[in-house]
Every structure is written in structure tokens, then in C-alpha cells.
């Protein structure tokens, strides 16, 4: 009998010997149980009806619930009629007899009858774990506890025969020891408790007293049967295996069929043969559809056939062929190398520019100087938000061998950006200049070919204690006059640098001018709001005395001076001490005079009073000691006036424009547009056709009066405001001096040929003055005969540059 049970066990998934052993140790008790149910088993296994009968006696709510039965015991009889349909369904299944749950059938009628009061427990042991295929579910039987106990005592030594009977139908549903009612649960759930589940009465099964190692050891020594003693996890009791059990285990270990009596080589009985038997095994005939062709299948086939025919679906070969066709096929697309076929093309295609080729810095092993030092690296990292400003788009790296070079982390990104550029970046054809910057610089003759011009500083005239605003030379080129902010006018001998005379005046000298008439020794001095006619008494004494004589007595005229002129200017004779100083006439103006200029003949002169509104320009006549106001309307802030050297023209420079008036016809001839912010001064070429205009906004403008009213050339030679500009009377030279202390001498050739434009070549830059109060050079004046130039500076000196 136990072999049978074990065989069952083994047929399940769990084949561990330990399990077998576990079961083995319960053997004794089990035998009793089996004895108890023995009689019933015989009946129940035979017929279904019996089972049903037995079932009637119990109501089982569900297979899983065990506890219900305890409460239901009282009501048993009332609910006898109820059947369990699950059980029935299972009994119908005739193919696998072993699967049949006969747990209920095992219940003994008589037992149940006789034990109304007994408590019944239905332990449903889920053996699905153990028996996956054959014995899925098992219902343990109900037994009367009382009877069980009795019978355990009685049948301890019962014979085996009975047992064999019991398992005639291989039912092993009751093989478990059901003293513990917890069911088939992992027993380690009880690890933390002192008990091991509950017995039939619901009392706790306490764990046996724990043995320590020593006890176990002693036991091992003492007990000869120790090797066959195992612990029952359900009860915690120790169980000794019988000889049969051990034998059985040995057979299993030897991979033999556990049942000794089983004949492996028994003759084969063919239950189902291919031969057609006279009478069918099954008692009903085959269904009609088993020999009629399926309509559904026919439809399906028809559909497939149609799909194949129509080419909706393809066979494997066809599919492969198609796939091969879909792969790109290459052939000779271009017959020749460079002959293009006539075909549609993109309109005005602009090919994408190629990528820049790498320089040394991109090398994996660049020269050491290409690697970033700390500063450069910092700079590189700082431009993280504006990477286009970086000098290099990567950090140069050096690896000492090729195997150490890693993949470039931004490679894919860079490729992607290139792709984006190719299809997203707007393209346009841009002209790229391939010229050198030198080509933009105009080709000019070399200064060496344009000599003579002043190149070296040869003399310094020191004596003034303040800025020298103005200088002028006499016509012979022997003497120099200068006017300064220290209110003095000094006469210098040019060749020696000696100061011949110093004339003290009342106010700041803004302008001095030597009379161009060589028979007169006269200097116009603008000092404050006075203009003084001064006889310097230098040079030819004859001329000086003659001048004095001419100016001695004022001509008397009966022309009535208009009110307007009279309020503007007042001529008066110098006083005694003034006369001694050299004053020959004094003109007192109503406003400060900033500039005076002579007419070429030396009789007329013009004065400028910028604040004078419509009376800002005044023309005086020495011989008649008379002044007149040429303009009746204000022309703006007049900066400077000039007489034309040969024609009766007056140039009037206001803040932005230069107006040319014909004094004879009394009309405006031209208005020159300077395109600058503020004119400072101007000078006219001795030929009279070219005008130089200096401006405070750093420019010097050359006007060709024949050409246009716009500047012929704008020279940006200086860095700051230009204050003085001058033409040489004889040589083709001009010079400009500015606040940046520099004097620039240029060649300005005017050709007689009207078709040829003037040639302007900057020749030399001279920088010897010191700056004072942000002023550099105030006035520039050429020597009338020699290619020499004088400059007066804010540092109180006059410098002579000669060739």
C-alpha cells in the first residue's frame, strides 16, 4: 500500500525524496486511517450512485473552504439533498479515472450516520502542486475523530491485505495525515509561533520541545535508527521510517518503478486499433460534418485563391523576387564623364560650399603650441553660450598614441548640423574680395619726387607766455608777426629767431595780418573788440616812414556814415602812447573781432565778428578810413572771410557752408556745401580756383571751384579738429595743423590744364609741438618765398620747418 501511495506521489512533479520521507513517517497513523475508511472505499469506488449518496450527507460550499463544515454539522441532515455540481461534472469525465475526485465518496455512510454529533472537518488539500497532471484536486475525507482515535488503537498491527483493497482504484486522496488542519500551506508561516496549526478540535498543535545541538548529537550516537528518523513538518513530530519505506526510497533513487509488482514487460494491449471493428467503440455514429467538406474552409480557400490570382497576396518566391527588385539597382547612369545631358535642372543652382579642411590644431598629435593653455581654455569655456565666437570649435587635444584616441563626442551632432545646413540654410552668391588691402590705397607719387617741402624743424621762436593764436609773415619773408593770448604782438626776425618788438595790447589777440602791399608797412591786429592798424617799423625805413606819412592825416569826406555802420565800428586816431607803440589807427567794434583779412591790394580789409548777427562781416578801407557792411541779413555764424586774390569775390564761411559773393555785382555767386559740422578756417590757392577748408570735425576739404560746389577731396589726415590750414604762395604745397599737435604737409598741385584734376599727396607729418589745454597747433603759415612753414602752438612757441 505505501508503495502505491508513493508511486502516486512520484508521478507528480515533486519527486524529492524528502517529501517521500515526510510522508513515510506518518505511515503508522495513516494505516489506521486507511483502515477506517477501507470498507466505504470499496463501495464508493464502484459506483457513482454511491458517491452521490455519500455526497448528499454533506454540504460543501466550496472546494477550498474547510472551516464551513464545522458550522454545518448541525444542519447536515436538512441539506442532504443538495448536490455539488462540480463534483458531478468531474465524475462525468470518464477518460481519466484517477482524476475523479472521490474524496466525497470516501465518506462513509455508516460513519456519518453513526457520528451525528461528531465534528467533521473537511480538509481540502490542494495537491495541485504535487500532482499537476493526474491528481489535480483532492478532497480529504471526513472522519469522525472519535472513531479515528479508537481505530488507531485497534488497528495498529493490521495486515496489509486490507490496505491493498483500499487502493484498488488508485485513489490516494486520503493519504495525508490530517491531524493538522491548516492545509497545504508553507509551514514556515508558523515559524514565529509556538504552535504549528490546529488539530481537529481546533486546538493548537504545539511545537515539540526544541532540541539543542547536543541533544541531537547524543541522539545520533545513541539511537541506532537515527538515520531513518525524519521530522514531520506538519506536526513537528519525529517519525521513524519503516523498512518498506526505505526500500521504496531506494527503488526511487535507483530510478526504478516504485511498485515492485509492476511488470514492465507485460504484453501490449491495443485498445484503439486501426482496424475497423464491426461494432464501433462509441455508441453514436459520426457527425455529418465529419464527412462533408467544410463550407467555411471552401470560402476561405476561395478567398485566398482569388487574392493570389489578383496579386493581393504573394507567394514566398514572389515576395523574395519583389524584395530583390525593391533593392536599389545600379547601372551606368552617366555615359560619359563630363558631358551633361539636357534636362531639367534647379534654377540657378548654387552648390553648397564645402567644409573647411582641418588645420594642425585638429590633429590627434598637434605641435605643442596649438594646445590651449589655461587662459585660452577659460576663454573657450566662457563662450559656451555663443559658440560661433570661438576661435576653434573644438579644444585641441594631444594623445601620445593612436590607440588612445577616443571617438569624438560631437561627431554625430556636427554631421547633423551639416545636414541641416544643406537643406535649411538660405544660399546666395556672395562676391568674395581677393584683393590685398594695399590695393585699396591709391597709387600716389613718392614724396621724394615731390621735393622740396619742409621736413625738419629748424627754428623755434620762444617768447610768448601763452597760446599763440595767429601768425603772419611780411611779403619779403624777413619778419614774422605773432599774436598771443598774453595780449602781446611780437615781431620776429625769421632768419635768426630774434624777437624784434613786443607790443602790448589790451586784450587777447585773435588775428594778425601783414599788409600784402609791399609799399605799406602795416599790420592788422584784432585784439578783443578792437582792430588796430599797426606800423611795426621793421624792415625798410623808407617804407615805414612813407606809411606813417600816408596815414598821418585822415582824409576828410563829406559822406555821411550811416547809423548802422556807426554803431558797429568807430575809427579813431591813436593816442600819444599808442602812437609810440606803432598804432596808426584803432577801430573799435561793438563785438569781439575774431578774424581780419586783407584784400590783395592792401587797401581793403575785412573783419569778422561772429556774434554780430547781420553785422558780423565788416569791410574797411584804410585809405578812406571808412567801413561798410556788405550784408544786410544775417548769414549764420560767420567763421571766416577771405578775399579772392584776383577777382572782387568775398568768401564767407559760416558754420556749414561757404558762400562766395561778387562784391561788385553785390550778389551771391556760389554756395559751397561742405558736408561737415563746423568750419574752422579756410585758405585760398594763389590761383584762386581752389579753396581749402578746415573743419573742427577733423577734415580738410579741397574745393575745386570750377568743378563743383561739393568738395573735390575730403582729407581725413588728422585725428582731431583742424585749426589751421594754408597754401604756399609759390610752391604746390599746403599744410594743415590740428589739435593732435601734428602738422601735415601735403603736395597740392593745380594744373593749368582744366581737364586735369588737382593732385593731392600727403607728404610729411611733423609733430613737435606740445599740447596745452587740449590745443595743439593754432595757425599754419608758409614762408612767402621759401618752402618753409611756420606753426604757432598752444605751448607758446612758433616753429619753423625747413627743407
Amino acid at each position, binding site marked *: 500500500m505505501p508503495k502505491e501511495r508513493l508511486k502516486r506521489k512520484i508521478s507528480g512533479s515533486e519527486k524529492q525524496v524528502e517529501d517521500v520521507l515526510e510522508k513515510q513517517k506518518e505511515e503508522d497513523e495513516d494505516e489506521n486511517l486507511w483502515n477506517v475508511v477501507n470498507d466505504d472505499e470499496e463501495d464508493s469506488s464502484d459506483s457513482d450512485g454511491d458517491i452521490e449518496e455519500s455526497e448528499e450527507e454533506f454540504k460543501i460550499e466550496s472546494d477550498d473552504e474547510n472551516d464551513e463544515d464545522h458550522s454545518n454539522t448541525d444542519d447536515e441532515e436538512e441539506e442532504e439533498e443538495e448536490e455539488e455540481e462540480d463534483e458531478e461534472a468531474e465524475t462525468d469525465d470518464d477518460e481519466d479515472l484517477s482524476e475523479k475526485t472521490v474524496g466525497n465518496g470516501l465518506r462513509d455512510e455508516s460513519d456519518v450516520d453513526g457520528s451525528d454529533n461528531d465534528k467533521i472537518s473537511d480538509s481540502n488539500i490542494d495537491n495541485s502542486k504535487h500532482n499537476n497532471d493526474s491528481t489535480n484536486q483532492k478532497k480529504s475525507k471526513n472522519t469522525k475523530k472519535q472513531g479515528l482515535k479508537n481505530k488507531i488503537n485497534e488497528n495498529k498491527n493490521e495486515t496489509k491485505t486490507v490496505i491493498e483493497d483500499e487502493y484498488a482504484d488508485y485513489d490516494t486522496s486520503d493519504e495525508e495525515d490530517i491531524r493538522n488542519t491548516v492545509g497545504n500551506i508553507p509551514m514556515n508561516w508558523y515559524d514565529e509561533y509556538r504552535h504549528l496549526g490546529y488539530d481537529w478540535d481546533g486546538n493548537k498543535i504545539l511545537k515539540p520541545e526544541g532540541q539543542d545541538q547536543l541533544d541531537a548529537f547524543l541522539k545520533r550516537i545513541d539511537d541506532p535508527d537515527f538515520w531513518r528518523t525524519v521530522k514531520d513538518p506538519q506536526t513537528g513530530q519525529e517519525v521513524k521510517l519503516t523498512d518498506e519505506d526505505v526500500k521504496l526510497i531506494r527503488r526511487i533513487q535507483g530510478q526504478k518503478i516504485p511498485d515492485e509488482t509492476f511488470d514492465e514487460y507485460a504484453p501490449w494491449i491495443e485498445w484503439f486499433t486501426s482496424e475497423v471493428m464491426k461494432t464501433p467503440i462509441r455508441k453514436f455514429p459520426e457527425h455529418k460534418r465529419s464527412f462533408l467538406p467544410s463550407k467555411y474552409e471552401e470560402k476561405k480557400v476561395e478567398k485566398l485563391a482569388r487574392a493570389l490570382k489578383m496579386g493581393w497576396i504573394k507567394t514566398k518566391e514572389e515576395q523574395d523576387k519583389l524584395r530583390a527588385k525593391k533593392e536599389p539597382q545600379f547601372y551606368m547612369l552617366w555615359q560619359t564623364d563630363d558631358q551633361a545631358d539636357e534636362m531639367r535642372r534647379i534654377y540657378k543652382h548654387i552648390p553648397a560650399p564645402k567644409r573647411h579642411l582641418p588645420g594642425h590644431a585638429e590633429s590627434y598629435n598637434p605641435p605643442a603650441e*596649438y594646445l590651449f593653455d589655461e587662459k585660452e581654455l577659460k576663454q573657450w569655456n566662457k563662450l559656451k553660450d555663443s559658440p560661433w565666437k570661438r576661435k576653434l570649435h*573644438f579644444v585641441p587635444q594631444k594623445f601620445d*598614441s593612436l590607440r588612445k584616441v577616443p571617438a569624438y563626442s560631437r561627431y554625430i551632432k556636427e554631421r547633423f548640423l551639416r545636414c541641416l545646413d544643406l537643406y535649411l540654410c538660405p544660399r546666395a552668391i556672395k562676391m568674395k574680395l581677393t584683393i590685398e588691402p594695399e590695393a585699396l590705397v591709391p597709387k600716389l607719387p613718392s614724396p621724394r619726387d615731390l621735393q622740396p617741402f619742409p621736413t625738419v624743424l629748424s627754428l623755434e621762436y620762444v617768447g610768448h607766455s601763452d597760446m599763440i593764436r595767429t601768425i603772419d609773415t611780411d611779403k619779403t619773408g624777413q619778419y614774422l608777426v605773432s599774436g598771443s593770448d598774453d595780449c602781446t604782438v611780437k615781431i620776429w626776425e625769421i632768419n635768426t629767431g630774434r624777437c624784434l618788438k613786443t607790443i602790448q595790447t589790451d586784450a587777447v589777440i585773435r588775428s594778425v595780418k601783414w599788409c600784402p602791399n609791399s609799399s605799406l608797412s602795416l599790420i592788422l591786429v584784432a585784439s578783443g573788440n578792437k582792430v588796430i592798424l599797426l606800423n611795426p617799423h621793421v624792415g625798410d625805413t623808407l617804407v615805414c616812414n612813407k606809411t606813417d606819412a600816408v596815414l598821418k592825416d585822415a582824409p576828410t569826406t563829406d559822406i555821411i556814415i550811416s547809423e548802422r555802420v556807426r554803431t558797429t565800428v568807430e575809427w579813431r586816431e591813436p593816442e600819444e602812447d599808442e602812437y609810440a607803440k606803432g598804432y596808426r589807427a584803432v577801430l573799435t567794434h561793438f563785438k569781439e573781432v575774431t578774424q581780419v583779412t586783407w584784400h590783395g591790394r592792401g587797401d581793403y580789409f575785412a573783419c569778422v565778428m561772429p556774434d554780430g548777427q547781420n553785422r558780423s562781416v565788416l569791410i574797411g578801407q584804410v585809405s578812406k578810413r571808412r567801413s561798410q557792411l556788405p550784408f544786410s541779413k544775417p548769414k549764420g555764424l560767420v567763421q571766416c572771410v577771405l578775399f579772392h586774390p584776383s577777382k572782387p569775390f568775398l568768401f564767407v564761411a559760416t558754420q556749414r557752408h561757404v558762400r562766395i559773393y561778387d562784391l561788385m555785382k553785390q550778389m551771391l555767386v556760389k554756395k559751397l556745401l561742405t558736408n561737415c559740422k563746423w568750419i574752422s578756417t579756410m585758405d585760398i590757392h594763389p590761383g584762386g580756383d581752389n579753396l581749402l577748408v578746415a573743419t573742427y570735425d577733423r577734415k580738410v576739404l579741397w574745393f575745386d571751384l570750377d568743378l563743383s560746389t561739393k568738395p573735390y577731396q575730403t582729407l581725413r589726415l588728422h585725428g582731431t579738429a583742424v585749426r589751421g590750414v594754408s597754401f604756399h604762395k609759390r610752391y604746390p604745397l599746403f599744410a594743415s595743423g590740428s589739435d593732435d599737435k601734428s602738422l601735415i604737409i601735403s603736395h597740392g598741385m593745380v594744373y593749368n590744364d582744366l581737364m586735369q584734376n588737382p593732385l593731392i599727396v600727403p607728404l610729411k607729418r611733423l609733430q613737435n609741438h606740445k599740447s596745452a589745454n587740449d590745443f595743439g597747433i593754432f595757425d599754419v603759415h608758409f614762408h612767402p618765398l621759401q618752402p618753409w612753414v611756420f606753426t604757432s602752438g598752444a605751448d607758446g612757441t612758433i616753429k619753423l620747418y625747413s627743407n
Partner: protein
Amino acid sequence: MVAKKKKKYSVGEGSQFISRRAALNKLQLSLNDFRRLCILKGIYPREPRNRKRAQKGQPGIKTLYHKKDILFLMQEPIIWKLRDYKIFNRKVGRAKAVKDFQKMRRYLDNHPTLKLDHIVKERYPSFIDALRDLDDCLTLCFLFSTFPSLPHIPRDQFMLCKRLTMEFLHAIIEAKALRKVFISIKGYYYQAEIKGQTVTWIVPHNFSFAPQPKQEVDFKVMSTFVEFYIIMLGFVNFRLYHSLNLYYPPKLPTTDVSESDKSLVDENIYVAERIAALNIPLTKLSNQTEEEDVEIDQFPSDTSAEDIEKAKQEQAKIKTLKTLFKGLKFFLNREVPREPLVFIIRCFGGEVSWDKTLFVGSTFDESDETITHQIVDRPNLDKQYISRYYIQPQWVFDCVNARELLPVNKYFLGEVLPPHLSPFVDKERDSYQQYIPPEEQALYDPSLRETLNEADESDENVAEEEEKEENEAEEDETEDMENSNEDEMQSTSKLQKHKLSVKPGQVYKEEPWEKTRQERQEYKLREKMVKNKHRKLYKSMMQGRRERSKEVWLLKKKRRLHEEQKTKQKSKAKQ
């Protein structure tokens, strides 16, 4: 009758350009389809001359396409394929939604495919045009050939890229067209000359693929490019192979195939692997080998004799370059990148092999006695043969760029390598505008090379000499002290003697820099006469020049500092 007023922007630039949105409306395409179409057809936005007029007075900056480009797209047959795709996607989506998987599979099996052959012809009417535009194509295909399979990208693209690029390399090997190579930190640069066109491409270093953030890299766009480039490269390969008298698709010599057990391997894979090895010459269509020795004929043209001479020299150099490694036998160690080196060595006529277990296609073993060079990239090697040089891979690259076999002593196993220079920098540039490292100068000027070598070697000597000089200087100083004492004595006596005396006149010497200074000043003045129109241009050009020269200065300074440091270290090590 009043003339009808013309509508604004109906003529001129306003009518020539069309914004992207309008283009989409006109073509009835989605943005994705339009993008794809633009990539395939090579249509790009254009920068108008006057943006305000071109975008019809609308504010902002719009992507403007030329109207004719859009009309050009409109007549493209693949637009219909793109529309088919739309329908196809809808059908598949529906089948998937209703879980009709059979139907879905059926749809997927006959998905529409784009045929791009005509577009290649259209974009590149002649073969030269295609070669001119091959740079991007090759670079992207080489990159894609290293990719694993990615979502949303057809799987066969990667395989096809691999195949085509390998075929292209074979064509270059056969044509011996490679001219310049360069190892950069980004990858290997190769420059080949095919039919007079220079083609440059980059092959990334190993393991170049890394997952990219979605907002940074869109692989779908790249895949669209690759879709076109594959076709283009295929046709280029075909033409190249035919012009080189080779079979296309490439064939291996039959003997090779018969040797192996054919039944064991898939033949296609077998051949593909052998081709990828790059080591087996392909079979030719006919056995005749045509030597292309085209002599430059003398034309009585206006080109000067110098130019012709130069061209001749260049050609001779290229001729020697083509057979640079002829007769040399290389063996690659395991750690050396196989593909680039095999490609280069084979391009210049060398024989090469590698460890059998590394890759298929190795022809001889390491123990072969006829090997002349073994390329190694490790600090030391246990077993060395005396009969061969053990050199580092940079030697091969530097030899190609120098167009001659360089001395190997600097590249021996474990040596500190000389710097690897780029061959792509312009050689005829101004040395004030661009820095030329001394190593590069040495390349053009062999005399400099010696000095450079000596400089390295003689550093130690210099240090010694310096010491000597210092000693001498000290001695001198002591002497000077004595002398000065004497001088003082003399001067005091002179003071006492100070009487009327005539000094000899001094000859006025013209200072050499005076002239240049004057010239510079003159130029500075002349500079101010630059026309107003060109003033800003001139200024910016000069500014750029100044910046460049500053960079040169900076690099020179760094070099000097570095060299000083090196000598210092050397002298320290000596002590």
C-alpha cells in the same frame, strides 16, 4: 480711362520668392513630406537681395524659396509616391487599429518605394558634378555604416552604407587615387583625387555611435539624406568600377572562393566579408592593364614655363606617391585600427596582413620573415624579429603626406612621436598671416630639417656650453671691474688735462631702420587717402590682418615657452 493700378509685389523680387508656408499650400504636402522632398531633390531656401521686398513686407525673417524651385518640385513624380505613403500609412494604421494583422502585413509587404535614380541624374547631370558633391555623401555614409539599427530608420540602410563605402574604398585602392590622409581628433580624413576632382571624406574613430538627445539630433533627417546618398554612391561606384575595368558588384578571384568550404557559409556574406577586408584585389573585366602615363604635352600656350615645370614636378611626385609602399610588407598588430591602415597601405602598393583571428582576409602570418614593417601601437613588445622595423601607425600617415618614406627612427616602438601635421593647410600662405610650425617648415626645406634634428640633440650640448659661457662671463666681469678701475683713473687724469682740443669729426651714418621708418610713415599718410567708399573695407581688412598676425605671434610665443620648458626639464633630468 484710368490705368489699372499695379498690385504691390506682383513684379520683381516680391514675386520671385515664396515663403515655406505658401510652398506647402501650393504643393499640398505636409511639412515632413516637404522636408523629405527638399532633401531628396536638393532644394534649398535662398537669400534674397532685399528681404523686405522678397517677403512682401512681412516682418520677421522667413524661410524663402525661389518660386521656380517650388514649380520644379511640383512636377516631380515622387510627390505622388509621397501621397501614396500617406494613404499607405492610413491603411496600415487602420488595419492595426482593428487588429487585422493579416491585412496589415499584406499592406506592409507591398509598401510603396521611392525610386531616386532620375533625381540623381537630374541633380548631377554629369559624373564630374556627382564627384564634386561626393564629400558630404561619403562622410555621412561612412558614419551611418558604423551605426547600430535605430528606430524609424530602415534597417537595410546601415548595411547598404557599409557595402557601398567598402566598394568605394576598393575603387580608390584600384585607382590609386588617395592623395592625403590625416588623423584628427574627429576621425580619419582622406583626400582622393578622382578625375581631377578632390574628394575629401572623414571616417570617424571607432565606437562613434552614442545615443543623442532627441532635441539635438534627428536621425530621421539624416536618414533621408542617406536614402539619397546611397543611390548616388551606388551609381558613382558603378561608373568608377567600370572605368577601372572591374566588375560591379565586385567579384573576388574565383580561386579564393573555391578554397573555402562553400557549403558552410552563405556566399553573399562570405564575399561581403572578404571585400570588407580590403585586402584581396578584385577581379578585372579583362586582363589587359592599361598604364595611364599621360605626359603633359607642350602647348605653345600663354602659361609660363614655370607653371609647366611646376605641373611636371607635381606629376612626378604623384607618380612616386602611387608606388610609395611598393615592395614593403606590413603586418598589423591587433591594437592597430585595421581598416584605415589597410586602406592606406594598399592604396600605395604595399602588402599588408594581420592576425588571422582579428579579421578574415589576412594573407600572411606574423612569423613571415619577409615582413619589413610591423605596425604596433603599444609601449613594448615581448617577441621581436630583428628583420623588421617595429613602427607606430603615424609613420604611415606621415609618409603619405610627405610623399616619401620618412626615416623610421622617430616612429619606433615606444618612441615619443613627432607632431602629426595636417596636410590640408595652404602651403603658399604668408608666414605673417598664418603660423607655420617649425616641423612643417622642415618638411618643405630639408636643410631646416637637419637643424631641427640637431636642435633636439644638441640641447644638452647647449646647456653645457651655456655653463661654460657663464663661467667665462664671470671672468670677464672681474676683468671688466679691473679695467673700469683703470678707466676711472684715466678719466680723472683726462679731466685735469681738459683744454682746448679738436675732436675728430664723426661720419654720419645712415641708420638702417630710419629708411623703413620713413617709408612706414609715408605709407601711413597714404593710407589716409583711401577712398571713402573703401575706407571701412580697408579698415576691416587691416584689422583682420592684425588679428591674424597676433595669433601667429601668440603661437610663436607659446612654442618658445614650450621649448624653454623642455630644455629646462632636460637640464634638470641631467642633473
